[in-house]
């Protein structure tokens, strides 16, 4: 029997030891009329079990009805990016059972492997963000932002006991997936989400921001680079939030940008969260990957999620263990600030291997190549007749928005190009706009193919306004 090692003889012997006649007797507490019997085929309509060979064929058949980023010249991102993942990552994290088949490291003496890598991961995130505290990871960037919102609310409740601060400000172009998840969490928590639009330059509208940042709000979040690819002036948001004493949260959609851009600590934010997929995690239609979550050390006691600390064993030797569990749900129950009880350790491990495999210099080089390719693609695509940049002159890292005409996808697909993501649903006046993403995987040849296909697709099209 697949995955069951008990033989019929074993089962008979075990039943005898237990003192019952059949396994059915062990389910006496389930009402007999509702119990499913093995011969009761009507009650559980599942197909018969398949062997490994058959399942492999079946999966290959399903995949034959799919295409992936590798089948195209691929230019879509929007939160998940088509990066190269080193074989080293899969060999350690996926194919070696030592980490993937372990659990949360509750027993530190036999889990030093996991605890050590989490500590190293925390250190790597601290290095990237400059902030002193990092947890051992959240589900994704979107829910990490929702958790940061909840943390901001709890911090404000502690700091401003007499003020009723109930608004959470989402400033500028936030990834719609993040905004949606934040809204869902805010709805049940009774938090009012206030949106601040972006201006004509793609950045946060400063006047609208100044108006929204008042003492009715407890925190403000800014995504940089933002959903439209534009790098925000995070420092300016921190300055604007100073007087009304708001918690400032930075969201990072493309973690690679941290290699070059002003670090969240340099900008002065309180909390930095982000999507970690870019760091050694496969795409898998968007998950699993992980959300990273870091904060100033002052806010440690309100952090959600698992945290690992260095400590010693009873002989004084360095060791690692989970720490500060009193923040968590299994101790605080209904008083906990988060219900998170596991973390995305394996995805965090992948990030650590990825960051170490590229290393201090390689990670910067990766970002520099991305910038160079993005600059090339911006120039080449905006030179196509009828196509222009929506935010010319705005600083971008790996993504940018072009204005073309709607409905170009099929024509591009014929040339094996998946062009930028149509963002007409992202707001008014975005008809014919596409969000184009570049990674180190994108080649000049692919960009040129996109340009060629777009040129042809745009022929005879009136220029959209």
């Amino acid at each position, binding site marked *: 029997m697949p995955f069951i090692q008990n033989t019929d003889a074993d089962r008979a012997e075990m039943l005898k030891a237990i*003192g019952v006649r059949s*396994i059915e007797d*062990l389910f006496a507490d389930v009402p007999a009329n509702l119990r499913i019997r093995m011969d009761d085929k009507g009650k559980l309509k599942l197909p018969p079990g398949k062997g490994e060979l058959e399942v492999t064929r079946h999966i290959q058949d399903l995949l034959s009805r799919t295409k992936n980023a*590798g089948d195209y010249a691929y230019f879509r991102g929007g939160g998940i990016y088509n990066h190269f993942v080193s074989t080293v990552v899969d060999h350690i994290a996926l194919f070696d059972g030592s980490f993937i*088949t372990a659990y949360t490291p509750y027993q*530190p003496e036999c889990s030093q492997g996991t605890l050590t890598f989490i500590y190293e991961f925390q250190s790597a995130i*601290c290095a990237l963000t400059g902030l002193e505290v990092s947890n051992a990871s959240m589900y994704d960037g979107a829910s990490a932002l929702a958790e940061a919102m909840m943390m901001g609310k709890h911090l404000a409740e502690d700091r401003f006991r007499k003020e009723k601060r109930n608004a959470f400000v989402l400033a500028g172009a936030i990834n719609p997936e993040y905004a949606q*998840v934040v809204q869902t969490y805010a709805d049940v928590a009774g938090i009012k989400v206030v949106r601040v639009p972006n201006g004509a330059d793609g950045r946060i509208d400063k006047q609208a921001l100044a108006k929204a940042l008042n003492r009715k709000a407890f925190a403000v979040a800014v995504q940089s680079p933002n959903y439209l690819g534009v790098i925000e002036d995070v420092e300016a948001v921190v300055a604007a939030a100073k007087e009304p004493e708001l918690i400032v949260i930075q969201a990072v959609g493309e973690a690679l940008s941290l290699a070059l851009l002003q670090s969240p600590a340099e900008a002065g934010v309180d909390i930095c969260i982000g999507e970690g997929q870019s760091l050694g995690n496969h795409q898998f239609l968007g998950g699993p990957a992980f959300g990273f979550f870091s904060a100033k050390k002052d806010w440690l006691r309100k952090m959600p999620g698992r945290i690992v600390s260095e400590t010693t064993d009873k002989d004084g030797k360095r060791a690692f263990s989970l720490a500060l569990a009193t923040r968590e749900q299994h101790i605080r129950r209904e008083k906990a600030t988060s219900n998170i009880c596991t973390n995305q350790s394996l995805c965090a491990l992948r990030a650590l291997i990825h960051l170490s495999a590229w290393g*201090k210099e390689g990670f910067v080089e990766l970002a520099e190549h991305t*910038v160079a390719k993005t600059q090339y693609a911006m120039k080449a695509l905006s030179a196509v007749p009828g196509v222009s940049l929506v935010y010319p002159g705005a600083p971008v890292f790996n993504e940018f928005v072009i204005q073309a005409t709607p409905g170009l996808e099929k024509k591009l697909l014929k040339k094996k190009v998946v062009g930028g993501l149509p963002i007409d649903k992202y707001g008014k006046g975005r008809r014919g706009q596409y969000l184009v993403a570049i990674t180190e995987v994108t080649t000049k040849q692919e960009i040129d193919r996109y340009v060629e296909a777009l040129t042809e697709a745009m022929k005879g099209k009136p220029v959209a306004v």
Partner: protein
Amino acid sequence: MTTTLANPAEKLLFEVSKPGRRCLRLPALDVPKVDVKSALKGAKLRAKPAVLPEVGELDLVRHFKNLAQMNFSVDRNFYPLGSCTMKYNPKINVTLLSLPGFTKAHPHLPEADLQGHIELMCTLESWLSEVSGLPAVTLQPAAGAQGEMTGLMVIKAYFEEKGEGKTRRKVIIPDNAHGTNPATAALAGFETVTLKGKADGSVDLDLLKSLVRPDTAAMMITNPSTLGIIEPRMVEIAKILHDAGAQLYMDGANMNAIQGVVRPGDLGVDVMHFNLHKTYSVPHGSGGPGAGPIAVAKHLEPYLPYPRPMKTEKGYTLANPNPKRTIGKVRSFFGNYGALVMAYIYMSQLGREGVRRNGENATLNANYLRAKLRGVYHIQNDKACAHEVVFTDAFQHKDGGPSALDIAKRMIDYGIHPMTIYFPLPAVTGGHGAMMVEPTETESKETLDYFVEVMKKIAQECKENPDLVKAAPHTTPVSRVDEKKATTNPQLYCAMCIA
């Protein structure tokens, strides 16, 4: 069963780092090189590069292989961690998952290119629906805790539409529930009411009746309970709640025992979540990722998160069929799709018979341990258990004898990962330290017999040489770890990482 342990003096990656070393090289830049400062004009750049390790590939691989040896894992050790369902994870899961069709499946691919993936999601939903006996499923929640949250959000949306959102503010939770239940209820904006369980962990119906009022939104019940007992009066519990207009939420964390035996929907459950990383062999990954789909009754379907995978005449699609009624999204894109794929592969292999067989053998294995260790360790409820059995340290932890913690640590010396300890909380285990053992169906009788021998030996050691047990473990790369110090004096990163 003992493991050769690695050199404990293994340094951290940051400590072996040396300028000039690296693993990966980029291809030559095929576009004109740019000056980053001028290309990103108008953006603020970081002052110094982030301090990441600089290592060669051999040292990198060796570092992690050494760490691997410092870990117990299901692949190498019996891992009877109660309430976690540490079953064997078939290798085919990860092998197929690493096909480029999955690894390079970008969420913004045209829908026509996702047909096989959406079909997989639809089929998995239908299987979970079958096993739960509930008609609608969402695969979006990323973990059990997020499944709970989603379930309560759905219930809240249902009552709001009925105009009872303001009145139904309370969620009843048994005192033996996992801590996520009350934490989730609070985050979802409910007040919690604690229901004291009976000594055997089952629900006191009279007490429940007295707590169910017009302000009750739902009860969250774990079945089988955290004491490893199947709740015998689920149907009556559901009736009490439904008669009062309230909903019954079932925490499916312990579904491994009753899958294929009974369908929660048939018992009257309105919402339940699955932990695919427990029941359907998604590897636990040192703590995650997992997946926590929920199944709901028909009247709750309109509130499920979007997008929902659907089959139409034109093919498969990801739709938002109830834009006004859906709770929204709880996770970006489509949830932990990679985890869903592994659960799908596993369930394909199980089939109808396998689902039932797993439930039966998980239950058989737990009861076998209960029978074999009866009298050696105290059992609070010595009746047929489900997938796990809860012992306590009552026989050992008296007159200064070793505690559940000491016994757990001593198990490590015999190559067995400790069971879950001190959960359920002492308040529901007669003040004794709980030792919750969940063998799972994938372990052989020989492994269970070895475990029994080890536990008997440790019980003997507790009498004859208690100090040996109290000082355990003796064979690990580090001795008993000072966890208190980790909290009172937290050191959370390598100092060199932040200048």
